[in-house]
């Protein structure tokens, strides 16, 4: 078997069909996009090359910077709040009996397999200012002053969308963490128990350190997923009120498809790629660099 995997020709032959499709349908379309970013282009025809004008226009546009702030707010909340909650859920799930575990597993995956449209509509109803769940609960306990127009108020709209996004994926991330936990050999825990370690100590000293590969994987997924946030925004607020809740990808969509300015749309795409690359390099450089072996 090792001999087979060492045969470069065999590797090439078996991976060629997939590589061919990937090149034709994913890599090849990149090049026209780069060209378009230097053109005045309405999506149908080029009206000539304009150098870096599209890039300058994008960078001068306050909405682009606002969309960046919104995107990084979502990334920050997803990683700094969402991932610890997912990890905590996974740790709790691991300590439950089989029946509870089964329930946890099913309910963790359920929101993630639902259509974004369904999730977004559900949260629109939850946030509805007059009869929505949140405001009704707040009014019910006498906190009328806290009842807000969650999706129409510029102070709350991005947080409200992030909550819906988090809710959808927090369970799936918990399940990924749980899978990582199950891969840790039981002997470590048995030794820890003999030494008198409790839940918090074993979690802190054994589980979390040994989960670093899974953590890195979930972190990358979470960061890239949050960076490319679009569907929830499109359905829940259409980027509004005004342009307040636009993310970078939404701004790209708006420029290319609503305003028919594909030149600026592609320029935003390229800037966004650079942002993603910086984040990827950062994660690779600073997160979980040492290989953990059980």
């Amino acid at each position: 078997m090792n001999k087979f995997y060492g045969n470069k020709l065999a590797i090439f032959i078996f991976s060629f069909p997939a590589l061919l499709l990937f090149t034709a349908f994913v890599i090849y379309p990149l090049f026209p996009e780069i060209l378009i970013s230097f053109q005045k282009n309405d999506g149908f025809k080029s009206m000539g090359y304009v150098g870096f004008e599209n890039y300058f226009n994008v960078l001068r546009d306050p909405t682009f910077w606002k969309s960046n702030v919104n995107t990084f707010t979502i990334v920050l909340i997803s990683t700094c709040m969402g991932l610890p909650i997912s990890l905590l859920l996974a740790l709790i799930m691991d300590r439950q009996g089989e029946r509870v575990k089964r329930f946890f597993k099913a309910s963790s995956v359920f929101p993630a397999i639902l259509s974004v449209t369904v999730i977004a509509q559900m949260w629109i109803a939850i946030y509805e200012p007059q009869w929505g769940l949140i405001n009704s609960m707040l009014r019910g306990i006498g906190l009328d002053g806290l009842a807000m127009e969650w999706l129409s108020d510029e102070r709350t709209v991005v947080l409200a969308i992030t909550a819906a996004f988090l809710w959808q994926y927090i369970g799936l991330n918990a399940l990924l963490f749980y899978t990582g936990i199950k891969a840790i050999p039981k002997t470590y825990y048995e030794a820890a128990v003999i030494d008198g370690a409790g839940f918090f100590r074993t979690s802190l000293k054994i589980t979390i350190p040994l989960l670093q590969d899974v953590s890195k994987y979930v972190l990358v997924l979470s960061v890239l997923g949050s960076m490319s946030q679009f569907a929830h925004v499109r359905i829940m607020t259409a980027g509004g009120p005004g342009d307040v809740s636009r993310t970078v990808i939404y701004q790209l969509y708006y420029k290319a498809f609503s305003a028919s300015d594909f030149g600026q749309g592609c320029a935003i795409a390229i800037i966004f790629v650079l942002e993603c690359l910086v984040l990827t390099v950062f994660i690779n450089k600073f997160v979980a660099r040492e290989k953990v072996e059980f």
Partner: protein
Amino acid sequence: MIKLTKLASGVVAIAMVFSLTACGGGNEKGSDSTKAAETSAAGAAQTSQATANDNERVKIKFLSLSADDNRNNIRDKYIKVNVEKEMPNVEVEYDLGGGGQDYANKLKAYNASGDMPDVWFSEQNLSSVVVEAGNALDLAPYVQKSGFDKKFKMQEVVTPDKDGKLYCVQPGADQYFTPRLWYHKDVFAKNNIQVPTTFDELIKVCETLKGKGIVPMSIVGKDGWTPNLHMLQTMIMAEDPQVALDLTNNKTDFSNPVVKSALGRIQKLVQAGAFAPGVTNIDYGPAVEMYTSGKAAMLAMFTWETGNLEKASPDTDFIVWPSAKDGNDANASIQFWGAPLSGYLVSANSKNPEVAANFAMFCATQDALYYNIEQKAPTALDTGVKVEGISPLLQKSLDQFDAASVKIPSMWAATFNTKMSAEISTLNSKLLTGKFSADDYIKAINPVWAENFK
């Protein structure tokens, strides 16, 4: 290996991002694979005489919307049926384009290739792109030759543009759609509220209704829909209709004081609590439902909802949008929805331009017949059919429509290009928050407006 992994993850990240815009790039034909083009069996049941003339028959490819009942009925029950009788020398290949973005993508793909169908139906925003690309035929000579232009009650619908070109023939149904302020007579009577005749009275009515816990006015706030489609223009016309006309003809811009006052009036309505909480996120369906369910006392909406509103809320009536200036008679001017390029167009590259032009005029006539007979709605194109059985509410609207001496096309439908539409949507949505000043609005929109007619 680690480097290879990093490289691979970088490439995948780039690819994922780029593929989003790549979807909207040049090659859009592939996305239409699910939309089967239907080839008509138009000649299948022909008479023997028609069969004898097969060699002389001209083939016309016709692209039509196929996602809404009106368009399907017009094509299947009128065009398909009557073309056999009225244009026996024509064999039509029907290309069903779906609706919405699917239809737009299909038409855009045809336009990008330059290989348009002979005849197609499209709205202003799509038509203007085709005209700009030089792919639409000037129909003015054919319309004048056939006398089609003489059949219009509103001549502006078939008047060539400033270059003497006419790119579209239409049935003239849209021209009768106008924005109204619908209200529940019962709610007004129960709360002892008089119908407002001035803008200031309207504000007072809104304050009174809000004080009683009723949503005063339901509007579609998502994407700034109601201000986009009519409220901004309505507020301009409430003070000086000429300014709205000047805007449609590019004789003024948004820094005009009347426009500024109009923006201020929308802001005043927001601040008076005229709209429902969270208005910037209310879509079309919920807005209409808010009114028909009785949660809102008034509804700002076009007359295309007349039938539905009459059925759902029998106590419905409408008022003409109140005037905001002494001496400006609100009944004297009216805003209509139709646009010069919403209708049937012909390819500039059609092999049989005259037959295609005649088929386009035939389609417009069948379209008008459908509205006259099935919908009992009038059209600017006179089909010879006397429309009977019009509901009292629609009749009241039509009487006021006919009595208005100044009829101004919708700026949104007839004037704004794609970029202008997108930007004004954003600004109108901001305006509905009540925290966006008229000055900021004007500062943001004027540069886009300056590009609108280029």
